[in-house]
């Protein structure tokens, strides 16, 4: 069975193809070289005039685990919201859905219907990882994976405070990846979530945790070193300290320096790029942040763009969400301390275009997109659902690709915010090739999905085909076809076949001796057995739908 996709215009940055018209051949779910004339082509799809890209990969989207389910339970009114468009959000078109808490089924369907074939849950609390995998197992169509959160868990903080050597840290980090079936490691407000449990309300990069007397910098250094030593492809995923606070760009700049040349990914950087200029002591520091990213090749970032309308913020950062809860809209929030492991804060938000701060947040995100030079190191995210639901990506792509559309939207914003932004002076328009980098090739390379994100021979045949249209929002909202592992699953923007994706994991080698100490720790201090903390691969594959892919990593460096 060979399928031929004929005459499509390929945007495949991994293989340097920028709008090259070329045929693609698929067999057994993979892209193959042109078959010999004796081999029979069983099926041909004519893609003349159509844009062909690898399936898109969302490298940061809260699709699984406790926080979003808490949001679903707290906000039943959100389920109604998909039925009407928000009058408030007049900048967004009807393609811009404002359904912030979709069910798992809807999540899978809406992703694939936009040409996304994978999404990664970025804040999987190790103790809650089983739930995250249960939810991801019920998310159809797409591949998935999770980054395990460390850095606020008491086991790690005790190691660090006791001055244990890097090997002990590395073994624990590797063990956590195995135990939670994760592909990367994330830190949220390093030390801050734990410090909040001791009634500390703020923790800057070099401030000491009141109990452990370690700083956020110590935590980041230790974990970024561990991830590097273990050869994990995905750089340490860092949600910086001081999320959302005016003036936090200085913490972000210091964090970039603290990486000390090791790979580090700064997530939803828009929320960490705020200055204190102006009458309202809130300003854009996008230029400083973009410059720092441009100057540090070891640093990558995703934006966490906000778009106007109703959404909900779901974060592990209980310390900062306790503060943000004052701005909750509707006025309710859930703040939790969780299992000496981490915490969470779920706070609904309504971003308004006539609100000074929200309007400037919108502009800051776009300023960063347009000021970071290397599209391989900046990623398109809304931090779903924190900045906006992922369904608004086509709208965001148009904002990046269409300067006049962007400037028209900007002109409708709060006037004081307009006065504080240089957005109109940024003339850059992203090309299709650059969009393909930041939504396909870049994320695949960053996460270490070697056979995804591109259209070369041997790649998994995850392919999105778009009708080329001037209105990029319409174009990216509704692909002509989407192929998942070689099967046509979407036609004219609608799912035609239901499939179930795989779960990507990283399984570095480590010294299992670490379990002896962990077992003692669990027996003395925890409320569950170590054996039950670990998630067996069969738990993910048992219903016959899911499967685990162990992604090849770099060699161990320590």
């Amino acid at each position, binding site marked *: 069975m060979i399928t031929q996709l004929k005459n499509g215009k390929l945007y495949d940055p991994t293989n340097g193809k920028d709008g090259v018209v070329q045929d693609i051949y698929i067999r057994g779910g993979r892209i193959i070289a042109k078959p010999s004339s004796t081999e029979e082509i069983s099926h041909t799809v004519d893609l003349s005039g159509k844009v062909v890209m690898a399936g898109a990969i969302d490298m940061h989207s809260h699709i699984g685990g*406790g926080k*979003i*389910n*808490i949001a*679903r*339970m*707290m*906000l*039943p009114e*959100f*389920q109604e919201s998909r039925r009407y468009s928000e009058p408030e959000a007049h900048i967004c078109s009807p393609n811009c859905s404002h359904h912030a*808490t*979709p*069910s*798992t*089924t*809807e999540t899978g369907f809406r992703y694939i219907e936009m040409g996304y074939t994978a999404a990664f849950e970025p804040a999987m*609390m190790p*103790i*809650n990882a*089983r*739930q995250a995998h*249960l*939810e991801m197992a*019920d998310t159809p169509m797409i591949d998935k994976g999770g980054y395990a959160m460390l850095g606020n868990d*008491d086991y790690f903080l*005790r190691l660090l405070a006791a001055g244990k050597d890097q090997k002990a840290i590395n073994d624990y980090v590797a063990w956590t990846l195995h135990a939670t079936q994760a592909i990367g490691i994330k830190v949220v407000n390093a030390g801050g979530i734990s410090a909040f*449990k*001791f*009634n500390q309300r703020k923790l800057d990069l070099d401030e000491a945790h009141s*109990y452990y007397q370690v700083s956020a910098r110590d935590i980041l250094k230790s974990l970024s070193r561990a991830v590097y030593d273990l050869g994990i492809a995905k750089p340490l995923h860092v949600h910086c300290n001081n999320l959302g606070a005016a003036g936090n760009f200085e913490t972000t700049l210091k964090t970039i320096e603290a990486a000390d040349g090791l790979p580090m990914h700064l997530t939803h950087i828009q929320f960490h790029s705020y200055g204190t200029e102006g009458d309202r002591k809130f300003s854009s520091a996008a230029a400083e942040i973009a410059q720092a990213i441009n100057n540090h090749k070891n640093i990558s970032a995703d934006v966490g763009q906000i778009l106007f309308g109703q959404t909900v913020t779901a974060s592990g950062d209980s310390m900062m969400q*306790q503060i943000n*809860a004052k701005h*909750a809209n509707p*006025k*309710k*929030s*859930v*703040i*939790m*301390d*969780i*299992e*000496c*492991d981490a915490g969470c804060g*779920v706070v609904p938000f309504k971003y308004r275009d006539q609100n000074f701060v929200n309007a400037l947040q919108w502009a800051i995100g776009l300023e960063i997109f347009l000021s970071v030079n290397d599209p391989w190191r900046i990623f398109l995210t809304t931090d779903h659902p924190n900045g906006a639901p992922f369904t608004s990506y086509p709208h965001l792509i148009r904002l990046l690709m269409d300067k006049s559309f962007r400037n028209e939207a900007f002109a409708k914003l709060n006037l004081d915010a307009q006065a504080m932004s240089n957005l109109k002076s940024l003339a850059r328009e992203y090309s299709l090739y650059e969009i393909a980098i930041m939504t396909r090739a870049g994320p695949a390379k960053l996460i270490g999905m070697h056979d995804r994100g591109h259209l070369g021979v041997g790649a998994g045949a995850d392919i999105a085909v778009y009708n080329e249209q001037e209105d990029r929002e319409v174009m990216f909202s509704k692909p002509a076809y989407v192929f998942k592992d070689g099967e046509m699953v979407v036609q004219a923007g609608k799912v035609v076949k239901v499939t179930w994706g795989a779960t990507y994991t990283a399984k570095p080698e480590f010294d299992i001796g670490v379990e002896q100490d962990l077992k003692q720790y669990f*027996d*003395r*201090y*925890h*409320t*569950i*057995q170590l*054996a*039950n903390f670990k998630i067996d691969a069969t*738990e993910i594959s048992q*219903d016959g739908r899911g499967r685990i892919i162990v992604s090849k990593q770099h060699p161990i460096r320590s």
Partner: protein
Amino acid sequence: MWQNPTAMNILDDSVQLISATCPACGLLCDDLLVSNSTRISVKNGCQKSQIFFTQAASNTSPSMFGVDCDLDLAVKAAAKILHVSNHPLFAGLGTEVQGMRSVMALAEKTGATLDHMHSESTVRNTLAMQNSGWQTTTLTEVKNRADLIVAIGTDIVTSHPRFFEKLVWNADNLFNKTTPEVIFLGATGNTSAGISPDGHTPTVVAAETQDLPAIMSALNAMAHNKKLDAHEIAGVRLTELKAVLEKIKAAKYAVIVWSAGCLKITHAELTVQSITQLIATLNENTRVTGLPLNSGDGDSSINNTSAWLSGYPTRNRFNVHQRGGEFSYDTYHFSTQQQLNNCDALLWISTFNAYTPPSGVAPTIVIGHPDMQFTQAPDVFIPVGIPGLDHAGTMFRMDSSVALPLKSLRKQALPTLSDVLRQIETLLA
């Protein structure tokens, strides 16, 4: 290998011990040792787990109107009832994650309304949370951080027997904290569980459950530094309440425990909200957090599963005929009580306990615990395995943050709930 070697000594060495997770209450203890000899015995367990793990399976044959039949016939009869039904009610829902997945799939096919047997209690919490949110904690945090436990309207141990043993009187903790002080505010039941191992007695503020709304309002007022023009509230001296409030404020990590199931008063959700608002107010300056106790029978598991699959916790409905099928949610109209009079078929599910369905007029299918004894035989009864005893599964703990695997511990010929529901679904295709 085991944490508590003394537990093993009680059993004969020749008996093989398996560690098990106990679904008998929301604590979901997984430190139990169960022998799989002819007669199951339990170590590290409480009275509830003893009953759970040693239950028999007496009634293993499917039946129709009380007459034994084979499984195929029973499945066909159940499918027929659901096929002709326009408004089926799926109630009880005493199951775990995998069972609930199958329930949801069948609900989608049949346009069913879903309600759990303990929703009357759960909804009191859900409504408060949906109105103003809350600040809560989880069991391991309680074990390691709590220096004050305030139990409101509950003795805790009647529903969650090992709470104090495991989470309050623990000798080991991460931060060298002192043994927590315990306050029972309006507790009914067994407050002696709050006596510490070294004999320290708990503070007991006696009050009736029906007086808790007034007492909570007074505490909230005092937390906002309002002066109350009274010497006592519902028979409790103001100085006594003031002392409770000061203790909460002075604690490093106070945990306020309540049980929605115990708050059997009108509009109990408002009292829950009073509790969560007190926590929110005090959290401005100090750390105080809440711990809602659940009611059991998989309530936490099925509401979580329902939420991610449909967008809503239970008391939801799949509208098979509207807009290509969507779920809707109504905590009042979709209650079992309301729906019993409106449904044209009842599917009752109870796999952990032999709870029988409420009586109604609609044709009734019962799938569940093999020990069920009926006063009025249902149209169809299909006994199934008990999760955590007869088959494996996944279950959420009371705090929703932790989900644990349940094990298969004995050989049983009974099908699982999911097996049966899938067979019914196939016939409806």
